[in-house]
């Protein structure tokens, strides 16, 4: 067991874990942050997606020892004071879920996409999200939710010139 100081959702957390234990396992089984899901453990489904320094990352593939200095955001860390982010809000409004097991990974992947590409086209969304599986087949609604989130986000952040 080694000791790590992890920066998760704005907090610094101490955790003791073997160096090769995956970040997903540490989050779920040692820190009770169960928003990141196990879907395959092999990088194939995206259910375990978290943001590491803003980059969407499969937490089932990365050992805890590799994320020491990084800023980690899990689904629990999105939004503030009970406010949903535009992406979360859009998933609710579009009803972009059935069982909801893929949802946290989808929301985080979409969040990263919209940071890079604030107004993605259909093809860009499909391409960016293709590594995330939804067995319930809610893909069309997720695409619609990402498009809606882009609009909500554009509304929330006024264009440069409008700001003082």
């Amino acid at each position, binding site marked *: 067991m080694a000791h790590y100081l992890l920066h998760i959702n704005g907090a610094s957390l101490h955790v003791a874990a073997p160096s090769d234990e995956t970040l997903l*396992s540490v989050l779920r089984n040692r820190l009770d942050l169960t928003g990141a899901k196990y879907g395959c453990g092999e990088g194939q489904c995206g259910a375990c997606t978290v943001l590491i320094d803003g980059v969407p990352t499969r937490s089932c593939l990365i050992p805890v020892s590799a994320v020491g200095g990084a800023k980690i955001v899990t689904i629990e860390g999105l939004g503030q004071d009970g406010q949903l982010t535009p992406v979360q809000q859009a998933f609710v409004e579009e009803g972009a879920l059935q069982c909801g097991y893929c949802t946290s990974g989808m929301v985080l992947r979409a969040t990263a996409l919209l940071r890079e590409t604030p107004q993605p086209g259909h093809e860009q969304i499909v391409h960016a999200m293709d590594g995330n599986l939804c067995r319930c087949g809610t893909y069309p609604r997720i695409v619609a939710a990402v498009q809606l989130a882009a609009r909500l986000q554009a509304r929330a952040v006024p264009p440069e010139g409008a700001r003082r």
Partner: protein
Amino acid sequence: MTPQHIPALEVLPASESSGPQLDRRDFLKLLGGGVLVCLVPSAAMPQESGRTFGGHELPKEISAWLHIAADSRVTVFTGKVEVGQNIRTSLAQSVAEELRVAFDSITMVMGDTDLVPWDAGTFGSRTTPTMTPILRAMAAAARELLVEMAARRWNVAAATLTAADGKIVHAQGARSLTYGELTRGEKLVKIVTAQEALTPAREWKIAGTPVPKVGARDFVTGRHKFPSDIVRPGMLYGAILRPEGFNALLESLDSAAAEKLPGVQVIREGNFVGVVAPDDYTAHHALAAIDARWKVPPQPSNQGLFDYLKSHPESGENDAPLHVAGSVAQAMDTAPIKMEEQYTVQYIAHAPLEPRAAVAEWQNGKLTVWTGTQRPFGVRDQLMEEFHLASHQVRVIQPDMGSGYGGKHTGDPALEAAHLAKVAGKPVKLVWTRQEEFTWAYFRPAGLMEIRAAADHNGKLIAWEHHNYNSGPSALTTPYTVPNQLVQYHPSQSPLRQGSYRALAATANNFAREAHMDRLAHAAGIDPLEFRLKNLDETRLRAVLQAAADKFGWGHVPSTPERGFGIACGTDKGGYVATCAAVEIGDGGKQVRIRRVVQAWESGAIVNPDGLRNQLAGSMIQAIGGALFEQIRFANGRILNPHFAEYRVPRFSDMPEIEIVLVNRKDLPSAGAGEIGIIGLAPAVANALFAATGMRLSHMPMTPHGYLPSPPS
């Protein structure tokens, strides 16, 4: 039935009000004051009228109950479970409708065997046609009871009162009382039968509307706890040693290295070997450290599978045909248009994104298991039998789970976790790995369908013979009008463990039938839509067929080698579906892309159009997998592709443009809609592929290798 006053009961202190020690008796006490309405099927109606239920088990035959508290909050208890099909929302809508209360004043308690009435399980599209009327009848009865109470209180005729917005109102609002105020905190029990007059669909205000999914916020914030997220105090993590193959025998086992790991306990009961450890990482490392030798007997593989299924009938099964009419043999003899063909479907996996999981906890002789299952009471029965326990000693709790699609009927991880927890003396969590999920669950049956059929010169069907080997009898009988028929299901000895899957064999039988209809249409030189309509008297199916064709623009544009159009329809379990597909053939005739799908659907009165559209689109997308590429590969008792990397499921990039046409029949009872939307896509795609390439692909999946076979030269 008049309400019965029951003696006031002590409300349990809060410290005892949660946790696994709670049983149903305590729970009923906890409900506090208010009205409790129980529904029994009329045949089982208790005759004695002085029966009280305070502090006692309610009769077994009760199928649901509903409670209105002193603060007017409504709680509904049902054994059905939410797995993504949205019944937590749609059932609450129906209750709100009949009770005349706001949708969000309702809480649904589901799938907890200590709190809800017994239920067979959530499958077969039964919730909407059976549970919805039960809950509506209860709600209507509760409303009537409240009206009577108000009438007595005000000493007026009940007919002068109305129920609206959670209140009983007299004389257009001159005075009113909320439901909670009316009960005055008293404990009232009313037992009703399912014969209350229900609000007709045409008058629905809450049911029939697109109410958003309950609790969606908890899913987008990660707050919802799925079965695999449950944590109990002092919990250990388990892992199970899996045999090297099916039907394997354990020859030797050396677990010394595993047992040296800190906190690890190896548990062995015959062929069952598992480990528990303080954390999940250690549990799986310990498992890997076990040296086990297995003897795996030789077993069948995909090679020759369909011959195997045909030549290995399940002995002792009833082999009578499902349907016989006239003489197929005679009709075939003289028919001008004949067609005979074999169709096959491979084993496929449900692959729910949340693998099977359970947390088991023993406390004072009582076993509580949190697990993802479509049959909480079925799992409770399994646990009772396995551990020789009475029903009050086992509680199964089903948190809304990461779906099942028919794949989570059994309690395998619940049993495994319970064994581990019993020996370890601590709660144990067990989450199957993806590989275990792909290997040790059960599969959608593989099957062989043999059809021979004939039509006359005018394109009228005259003979239809359809045999299904192993995959199942669902939707086996044809909805078309045919004078001579022989339809038969032949159960086989399956080389793999098999079980339910969304829509059961309706997918396989409809694929075979609708592909065969397409062949006959072409042989008769008649447009496939026209050919179907010519042979179809079933008006509900005709209606969706026409609706899908109209929306799609069927027949407006001819197919080309690059783009083919196909049509198919089908019905089962009260759902009527028709599907048109446009496929694109790329990469020099090798690549298949489904570009556009139009699906029309009718299942009676629509309870929630938004939830319905979500289910239908999801069904169509899930159907793409079975149609084009999903297939379990196996040999000698081993699954050869137990990973998403090798078992391809539909992704964003497989998504076609989807259009859904809903036919709302408010004059007809609502049927379930979670399953049958899956059966139209595969044959529509097969027929579209033929239209483009001239090739008939009679096997599901149609492109197991990811590309089309080269056309015969």
